[in-house]
């Protein structure tokens, strides 16, 4: 292995990239120029005996109106002579076509040539005999004037059918002159045409209004768009209209509750979304779905995408849909497509704005002891001597005010009466109220966006700019985002299309807020009666009060001032450039090259001010003493400045060959190509001590020397902050060959297959040499199109079966013995290293096989439509652990040892309850997924403590709850008891002594059943939607008293169950809360905390959001030159409608300090 960072290959690759960048920038400017030329509808011509097609081309150049007509018709065209200056288009066309054997019609911005009507006196004489058969050629367009391909053309009353090709043209031989042709397609209204001896037909089809959305839309896998009815895979489409139902600054957040099969589990400890598509797929690998934006995996922060710029989202669920993404598709794929202009569409301007306000957080959500109750316990603990060690602490760390008062009383410094009155004065305080008043506020978000889109026949464009500002509910925390976006498509000449896009996002954040006050007590105050900001003691009161007399800097911590002492900001710039060239080599065969460049630069700057508590504390801790007086500090005076930079640069290139054609009975959609992708990240951090913001100077203390600390005298190094000085860098490279072929026979039978070979630099040479193929195959049968199918109740019915493999990467593993270098080893400061990978040449990607059955159906008039799906996923080579003899120096070996299986079903139903002036739709999403470990040989620990990390036990779900079997409280002392091997146990030995077989499996932590019900009403311009979400079949363990934590760390570890505790014999009949244990035995607490008596059902149904909007009628708007105007109101996080547990806990957030608050948004959208 001689390959290092300076690989000559890299430069060659970069030279190519430089070239592409130049191309991209050029094309971008070309597009800008072209846009400005668009929009003229006047024509100047001076022609003499010119071919009609040449004249029409000139009109196209001048106006953007293209022409379209069957070739046989054009062959009959007469030469044109005309001289006109700035004539109106219609006038000019009328003049031109006056002398032609055919006429025209305007469809959108297309001039469609058509046969003159029969009674037209200028009708040319048909060359065909008036009776018998004739060969008919024709062209079909849709409402927008675009060629309508794959329209089936049937001779009424016969089985003879043909189909239009990609240009909307068809040729039908030997058609009876009096035949009636029926034009049908999935997304247009059936249309009948009497042949009446015409050999050339121009047919204009109307879009089916009530067409099933899933069926009418195309599917976008990120690689290609396919007709939905010819795709075998399972894809969920989320349209712009659906996305607009929700208000959010993050596009992914919008998907919750509206996307079938996309589950938002909540992390138990952070509350963060853990996205899952069809349950769990991996144990140690990357768990989130792949996010693709505009055809390429998105490496940056998804917050850089302005949700208003998103056109639609496709969620790829099964192997047939997702396996085209290969080793990254194991968890499913979310394909986001941003908005584009449309060809032949006049300029459209849109403006939107919304404001969201959310309540202050509910600091009383977490059940804690009442302050007065806590004071009583402190008094009790004091009398028992629990604070003696703390009162004698050599470090003089703080004790609570109550303990200070009690200690003063004990030392005889104050009277008993004073002591009790001082304590009683504290009882009515509640710090949470003060924090809500001074440290928290209502959250307020603003979003603005403006965009222009449009296009002529040669180009389309979309420009947008957006600005978002979020005021966090923590005072001092804000962020904002500015986005600029331009997407243009340009037809260079026939068959050659150029795409160019530029997106720029700048985000700024400030996080100076304080939400956590160390060493605070619930009865403390932040502001005194005199209005002065109070200190929260971090050391003994007396010590803090008097230390400055000895020359020490003030050692007090004032929470309300701290915000001003620090300045923590972050700024992020994201640039995304996209360019593409598409060239039609032959009919239906396109060569496509696209390239994307993405760069995100983030800089975090944290200035911990010279007057901040942090700096003052360090200076005092490392004080240099002279006869007991402060004589300077080993810790440099001045501010601390931490700067973290991270830079992400990715390049993607894709060259693909696409083939799409339809014949009478066949259709083929195929793609093959190569993907190359590189993502580099570089990070560095710097930390300056004794920094002066004014002069830019700093100190260079010795970070490896240990200095004595005050007051205890123990020695420590100065190195204080977490990140310090560092430099990191990663390079991820992928090279992929892919192909996907779908073939449809008679519009009824479709088979598809995809194969992909991935190579990455993750695993080292051995695995790369054996690039792993991931494949899938699928079949679809449109049963309802069979002639034998006569089931009128379900006029649309089709069946799909797919099978294939998706992959997953565990980026932390390598096949090589690798070491990781660190700088600055403890005490010596030398560089040092640790072995991070034990060599395992057999390591390979994880593979998940997935089988999918789907039934798509619709009743008459699409009254009820939807799909039923069943899937089975089997993770075969999942990376797991295996125990090996620790004498080797290694205890656990990683390898592809594990297996798991996930079974489930997805049901999506759309019901039209009322379809009149009042429109009422109901959408029901039902998703079921259960996972089970099939094979796992590694060690498993922490069964009872796990809830946010996997506990892989064979036969059980990945995220399981295990509990001690509760045996009630001991009637004699109220101690917790559990069953160990069927005998009551009260030995409180450490958790390791209790065997797994003595634990109860209490159920799964993640919900097996999830879904939503969305009702939508529309009456005139008023639209009302509300979304109900449900999660069923899972469990959580609620928190309760933990005496050792309570006594060890104080009130923040308290629980209101304290008041329910066992106090005297007999209490055990009505309570399970153990008696207090003053010496705080961890395992005694654990017996209760991890017992099944605290396991609660987590099933719940919540009203997630309501959306009410009003669209002003068009007539009203016209006078204000608006095209559309909508105002809306949106309310989110409305609350739980039902829960199985009788505890007042949100099962999504059982351990969070507070759940997301209710929020209300008002918005406006205008188009003109």
């Amino acid at each position, binding site marked *: *292995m001689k390959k290092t960072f300076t690989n000559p*290959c890299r430069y060659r690759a970069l030279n190519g990239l430089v070239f592409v960048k130049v191309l991209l920038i050029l094309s971008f400017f070309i597009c800008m120029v072209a846009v400005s030329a668009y929009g003229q509808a006047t024509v100047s011509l001076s022609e003499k005996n010119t071919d009609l097609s040449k004249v029409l081309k000139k009109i196209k150049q001048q106006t953007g109106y293209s022409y379209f007509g069957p070739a046989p018709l054009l062959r009959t065209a007469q030469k044109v002579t005309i001289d006109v200056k700035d004539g109106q288009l219609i006038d000019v066309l009328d003049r031109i076509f006056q002398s032609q054997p055919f006429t025209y019609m305007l469809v959108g911005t297309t001039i469609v040539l058509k046969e003159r009507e029969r009674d037209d006196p200028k009708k040319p004489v048909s060359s065909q005999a008036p009776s018998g058969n004739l060969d008919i050629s024709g062209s079909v367009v849709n409402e927008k004037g675009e060629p309508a391909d794959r329209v089936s053309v049937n001779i009424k009353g016969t089985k003879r059918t043909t189909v239009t090709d990609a240009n909307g043209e068809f040729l039908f031989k030997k058609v009876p002159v009096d035949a009636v042709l029926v034009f049908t397609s999935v997304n247009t209204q059936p249309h009948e045409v009497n042949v009446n001896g015409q050999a050339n037909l121009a047919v204009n089809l109307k879009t089916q209004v009530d067409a099933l959305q899933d069926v009418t839309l195309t599917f976008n896998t990120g690689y290609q768009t396919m007709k939905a009815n010819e795709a075998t895979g399972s894809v969920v489409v989320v349209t712009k209209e659906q996305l607009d139902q929700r208000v959010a600054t993050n596009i992914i957040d919008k998907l919750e509750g509206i996307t079938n099969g996309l589950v938002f589990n909540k992390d138990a400890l952070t509350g963060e979304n853990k996205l899952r598509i069809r349950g769990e797929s991996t144990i140690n690998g990357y768990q989130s779905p792949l996010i693709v934006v505009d055809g390429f995996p998105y490496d940056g922060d998804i917050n850089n995408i302005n949700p208003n710029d998103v056109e639609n989202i496709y969620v790829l669920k099964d192997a047939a849909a997702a396996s085209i993404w290969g080793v990254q598709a194991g968890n499913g794929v979310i394909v986001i497509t941003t908005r584009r202009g449309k060809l032949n569409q006049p300029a459209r301007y849109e403006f939107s704005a919304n404001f969201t306000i959310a309540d202050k957080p509910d600091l009383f959500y977490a059940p804690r002891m009442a302050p007065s109750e806590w004071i009583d316990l402190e008094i009790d603990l004091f009398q028992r001597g629990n604070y003696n060690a703390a009162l004698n602490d050599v470090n003089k760390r703080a004790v609570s005010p109550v303990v200070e008062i009690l200690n003063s009383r004990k030392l005889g410094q104050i009277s008993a009466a004073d002591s009790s009155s001082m304590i009683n004065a504290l009882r009515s305080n509640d710090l949470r109220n003060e924090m809500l008043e001074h440290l928290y506020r209502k959250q307020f978000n603003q979003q603005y966006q403006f965009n222009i889109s449009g296009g002529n026949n040669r180009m389309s464009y979309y420009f947008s700019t957006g600005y978002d500002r979020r005021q966090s509910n923590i005072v001092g925390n804000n962020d904002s985002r500015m986005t600029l976006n331009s997407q243009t498509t340009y037809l260079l000449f026939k068959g050659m299309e150029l795409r160019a896009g530029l997106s720029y996002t700048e985000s700024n954040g400030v996080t100076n807020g304080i939400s956590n006050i160390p060493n605070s007590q619930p009865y403390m105050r932040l502001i005194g009666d005199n209005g002065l900001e109070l200190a929260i003691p971090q050391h003994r009161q007396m010590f803090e009060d008097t230390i400055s007399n000895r020359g020490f800097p003030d050692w007090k911590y004032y929470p309300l001032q701290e915000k001003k002492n620090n300045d923590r900001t972050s700024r992020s710039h994201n640039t995304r450039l996209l360019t593409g060239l598409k060239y039609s080599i032959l009919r239906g065969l396109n060569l496509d090259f696209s390239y994307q460049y993405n760069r995100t630069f983030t800089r975090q700057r944290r200035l911990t001010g010279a007057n901040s508590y942090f700096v003052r504390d360090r200076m005092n801790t490392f004080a240099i003493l002279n006869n007991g007086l402060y004589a300077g500090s080993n810790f440099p005076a001045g501010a601390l400045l931490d700067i973290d930079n991270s830079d992400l640069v990715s390049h993607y290139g894709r060259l693909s060959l696409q083939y799409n054609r339809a014949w009478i009975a066949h259709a083929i959609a195929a793609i093959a190509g190569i993907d190359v992708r590189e993502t580099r990240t570089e990070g560095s951090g710097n930390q300056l001590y004794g920094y002066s913001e004014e002069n830019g100077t700093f100190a260079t203390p010795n970070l490896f020397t240990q200095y004595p600390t005050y007051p205890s005298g*123990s020695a420590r190094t100065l190195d204080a902050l977490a990140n310090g000085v560092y430099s990191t860098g990663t390079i991820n490279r992928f090279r992929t060959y892919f192909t996907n072929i779908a073939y449809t026979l008679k519009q009824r039978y479709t088979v598809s297959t995809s194969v992909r070979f991935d190579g990455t630099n993750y695993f080292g040479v051995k695995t790369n040499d054996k690039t792993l193929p991931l494949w899938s195959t699928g079949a679809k049968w449109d049963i309802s199109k069979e002639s034998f199918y006569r089931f009128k109740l379900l006029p649309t019915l089709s069946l799909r079966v797919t099978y294939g493999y998706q992959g997953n990467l565990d980026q932390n593993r390598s096949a090589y013995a690798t070491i990781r270098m660190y700088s600055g080893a403890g*005490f010596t400061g030398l560089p040092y*290293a640790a072995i991070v990978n034990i060599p395992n040449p057999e390591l390979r990607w994880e593979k998940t096989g997935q089988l999918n059955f789907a039934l798509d159906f619709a009743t008459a008039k699409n009254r009820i439509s939807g799909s039923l799906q069943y899937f089975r996923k089997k993770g075969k080579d999942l990376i797991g652990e295996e125990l090996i003899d620790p004498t080797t120096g290694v205890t656990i070996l990683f390898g592809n040892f594990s297996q798991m299986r996930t079974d489930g079903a997805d049901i999506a139903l759309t019901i039209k309850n009322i379809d009149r002036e009042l429109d009422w739709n109901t959408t029901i999403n039902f998703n079921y997924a259960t996972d089970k470990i099939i094979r796992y040989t590694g060690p498993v620990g922490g069964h009872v403590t796990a809830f946010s990390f996997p506990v892989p036990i064979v036969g059980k779900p990945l995220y399981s709850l295990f509990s001690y079997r509760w045996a009630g409280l001991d009637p004699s002392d109220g101690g917790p008891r559990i069953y160990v091997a069927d005998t009551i146990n009260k030995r409180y030995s450490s958790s390791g002594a209790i065997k797994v077989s003595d634990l109860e499996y209490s159920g799964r932590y993640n919900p097996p059943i999830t879904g939503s019900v969305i009702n939508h009403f529309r009456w005139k311009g008023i639209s009302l939607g509300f979304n109900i979400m449900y999660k069923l079949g899972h469990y959580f363990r609620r928190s309760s008293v933990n005496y050792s934590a309570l006594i060890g760390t104080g009130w923040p570890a308290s629980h209101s169950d304290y008041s329910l505790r066992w106090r005297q014999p007999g209490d055990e009949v009505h309570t399970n809360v153990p008696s207090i244990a003053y010496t705080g035995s961890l395992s005694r607490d654990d017996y209760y905390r991890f017992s099944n008596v605290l396991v609660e059902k987590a099933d719940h149904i919540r009203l997630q959001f309501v959306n009410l909007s009003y669209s002003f009628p068009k007539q009203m708007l016209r006078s204000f030159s608006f095209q559309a105007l909508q105002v809306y109101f949106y309310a989110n996080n409305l609350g739980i409608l039902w829960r199985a547990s009788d505890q007042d806990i949100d099962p999504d957030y059982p351990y969070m300090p507070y759940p997301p608050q209710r929020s209300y948004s008002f918005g406006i959208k205008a188009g003109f």
Partner: protein
Amino acid sequence: MKLKNIITAVFGVVFITCCVSCKKGWLDVKPEKSLVLPKTIADFQALLDNTDANRGAGIRFNTWQPSLDEVGADDFYVTSSDWNSSQTHTKNAYIWASEIFPDVDPGNRLDWEYPYKRIFYCNIVLEGLENIVPVTVSEQIAWKQAKGHALFLRAYSHYTVAQLFCKPYTKNQAATDLGIPLRLESDINIPSVRSTVQATYDQIIADLRSALELLPVATPIANNPTYIYRPTQAATNAMLARVYLSMEDYENALKYANESLNLYSTLINFNLFRRKGANGQFLNGHTYTRTTNTEILFDNSLIDYSILRTNRCIVDSSLYKMYDSSDLRKTMFFFLINNRPGHSFFGSYIGNGAVYFSGLATDEMYLIRSECNARLGNVGAAMYDLNTLLRNRWDEKMPYTDIAETDPDKALRIILNERRKELCFRGLRWTDLRRLNKDTRFAVTLTRQINGNTYTLEPNSKYYVLPFPPEVIQLSNMQQNPR
């Protein structure tokens, strides 16, 4: 059309660029800068320099030396309630139970895993260095330093395992007594087999002697802490002295202690380091640290099990009483915490209450040389060393009178008592008990009182040899120690 040709050419160029850039080597770059395939001397040295206390990815060469021997020794006792809340295996080791390691909970095998993990690192280094031919003089020095370092650490680690998991060295039984598995290659597929006690000690001594040839003379000085983490000749000699002493080979122990002290013999006068309170009284503890304690030859510290923490373990009162009131160690080693039934150990030689120093230092060398001299009949030399040490421990305000014992037996008793007093909580007592119990003059029976039960450990009991962790037996089929 001309443009068409241009476009076709552009596609062609792009395609070729793609193909060129996608040559094989393109996927061979390492995915992370800090990931390194170790191949240079510096890489291997870096593996041995892992002394970080916070981030070091599961290995630390300066801390986490096995400490169940200290748990089982008689320097301290704990209260029943503190015992109840300690980790299971430390509770078992404390009462010399027949089972030490519970059959679940991998966190409890550190006394086995850590030394073998260090040995694994050393073997990786030794094998890697075999593939490097140092050319320049500075490369040769670095290569020798790294190799000597790895050999030293491998011997040191094997030795710590041998003190817990195989019988003490007894000359006429060592060839048949079961030793510990010796791991001399990094290949994890090589099965572990038990050696004999003789082979175990032979390997330890062979590694140390090889290291001695390679390592520099450099002295551990306070301002260059590198050399208390990178072993020197002085440290290697000291380790050899320690090993030979445990084998009751007093001639060799004397030889190497002498060699070590010839290279480095600094002692700290405790009077310089005692702290004075506001009223001039002595305060507990030290102000010196790992890097300012100039007695340290090689730094290491014990696994900090909760049962060993300052706030749990109470100094055995008979040990505490052994110190003279003029002995500064009495106030510098021990202090009182409120509501504790006895004195607590201040925690060390390195100014840190949380970890107990267990490495090599000059004071141990003085004591070894003194003991060996006494045993070999050089009582005068023995007393000279002892007095040198004690003078540095005595309150300067209370004049120190040299001990002038001439009877070899009495002298030996005095020396062994001073050894106990100087080297308490250093992880050495268990080995001393195993060695000294063989001599009826010094044999002691240990007792513990926990939850109303009394536990005893007879001299030369089989319980002085701990059982292998059950998983080790399961996964390797090695023979278990009798319990």
